[in-house]
């Protein structure tokens, strides 16, 4: 059997310099080509899981491990994880005034290529890549001329995240509440962008509150997250069940 893209084993995490444990024994296996959804209420630890995967400072793993393509993910710095093929689409993409979007995209792509021992992209090749990917997501060129995420609407920010994802061609996409702040049309565009990237070599972890996104990005598996762990897993019908019963119906379940 081939190595899963992501394996999380008994992951316990707390915030550095605090005692409160946020993740309390997460187990998850994400095989290549599959899309898994993690659903849970606010404060259940979903976003922490996405930050720990991406390598944000400030968290301490007290127990357990994460394997990415069979390698110890926790040994890698955030930028190494990105170069190795992990991409986090942020719930709230950060606005960075003074950094032009195109400058950022070029720096990010080339940094990843460099760490993989590949040559830098030629400017015309880069320009064309961005133009093509942007057109699919209905991102106007004018938006790319602005500083990174500055003055973007909620929907534009999310589209910009998916644009980055399309350009970076990661093997694992973690989408943290990508549906938040999107109207129906934007949700459709973003979902199509994501679906377009589904492939047998790429897995996705879709974190969301609502079933709605899963009508557009249909998952292979659904996991219910509560109080820092997965309490129930099933196929996409579980999401529908969750929608009718609410999260309360799943509290105190053992995984």
């Amino acid at each position, binding site marked *: 059997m081939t190595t899963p893209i992501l394996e999380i084993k008994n992951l316990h995490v707390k915030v550095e310099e605090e005692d409160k444990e946020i993740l309390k024994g997460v187990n998850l296996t994400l095989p290549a080509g599959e899309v898994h959804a993690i659903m849970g209420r606010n404060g259940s630890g979903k976003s922490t899981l996405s930050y720990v995967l991406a390598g944000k400072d400030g968290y301490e793993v007290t127990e357990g491990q994460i394997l990415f393509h069979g390698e110890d993910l926790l040994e890698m*710095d*955030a930028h190494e994880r990105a170069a190795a093929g992990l991409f986090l689409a942020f719930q709230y993409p950060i606005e960075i005034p003074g950094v032009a979007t195109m400058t950022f995209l070029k720096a990010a*792509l080339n*940094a990843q290529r460099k760490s993989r021992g590949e040559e830098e992209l030629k400017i015309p090749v880069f320009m064309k890549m961005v133009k093509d990917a942007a057109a699919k997501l209905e991102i106007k060129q004018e938006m790319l001329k602005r500083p990174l995420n500055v003055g973007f609407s909620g929907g534009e920010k999310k589209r910009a995240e998916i644009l980055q994802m399309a350009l970076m061609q990661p093997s694992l996409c973690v989408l943290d509440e990508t549906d938040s702040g999107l109207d129906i049309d934007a949700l459709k565009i973003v979902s199509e962008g994501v679906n377009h990237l589904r492939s047998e070599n790429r897995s996705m972890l879709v974190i969301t509150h609502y079933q709605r996104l899963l009508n557009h990005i249909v998952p292979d598996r659904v996991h219910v997250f509560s109080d820092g762990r997965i309490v129930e897993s099933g196929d996409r019908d579980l999401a529908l069940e969750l929608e009718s019963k609410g999260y309360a119906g799943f509290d105190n379940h053992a995984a």
Partner: protein
Amino acid sequence: MNKDIKLSGAEEQLQALLLSHGNKEAAAQFAANGLPTRRIEAYHYTDLKSLLREVPSALAVANDGASAKRSNFDGVARIEIVNGQLAGDFDVEGVSVATSGNTGTGDDSVVLLSEALVGDVVEIKISGELDQVLHIDRIIDGDAAINADKVSVTLEDGAKATLVETYNGSDAAHLRLATTEVVLGEGAEFSHFQLDGNSSATRHFANNRYELNADAQLSTFVQQSEPQVSRTTVSASFVGGGAHADFAGLNMLSGTQHGDITVHLRHLVADTTSTEVFKNIVNGRGKAVFQGKIDVAQPAQKTDAQMMCQGLILSERGEVLVKPELEIFADDVLCAHGATCGELDENSMFYLMSRGIPRTEAKAMLIRAFLAEVFEPVDVEAVVHVLEARVDSWLQEQEEA
């Protein structure tokens, strides 16, 4: 006047120098006050009695400056002032260069020293619109010396010019006292850049004074990043309606460097406007100071003066010290002052790193982004290159430190 002030060794030396320069009056005035201490409000964060414990014993003497580092830009009209002596002439239509004796004086001890020790004033008169950028390279050559020089620029009504000044010198512990005076005639437009190429051991004091007549437009930029101690004072008087000025500057400090930019604007008549944007980056035990004073006189209705100062602290022991002072006697004015200070934003760092950008590079991107606002209005390509190159090399030095 306090006759009993005890002078430090450095102060006694400066007093002796004033006497040997034949200026008894200035020597007596200096002896009565000494170097400014923190008790003087304008020097609140820059106590010169303690920062200037040692000063060179002699004035810089005439020298061809053959061994000094210089700044050279393509396509500009260039003159040099080497150890206070004018070398060269601007070969530009509408510009005349002459020298004259100095009669300036001042209450502030640094201004007093600067004025009293100047030999010739370099006087530049500008009429009409210049096509070429003017460049003055102010050089101190030879062994450690006290060097006072002065440039006086007059823009006639409607004149339009850009002046880039560079400070360069030999690698010695000079005490530089530089004065630049600019009078903008009615409707004149002037862009003024001061780039720092001083040696690291230099103590640099620059006094910039501007007078803006009706409808004059001024923009200025000061860089401080090289000397052990540097202080630039920018003062401007708005004496004609419709005058507008943008003041900008940068302290970029590390090690134990001390950099002070002190601005004093006087809005004296109705309908004048000003903006100030100053950025400070400190690493190590660097200390950046910004003081911004705005006076709005009673007749100066409709004054609009906006002051902003931002600090970025890259180390535990770096300091950014900021003080605004506003004195407003008119009732229909818009005056605002703001200051921010902080470390690099962790969330921004994480965002960039999560996209594959290594920490060092991410940090550099955010530092350049912090500076973007103050570099953006710089429209002289040669200046942009110098500033960007210095930021790059500075970032490199911080990584290696």
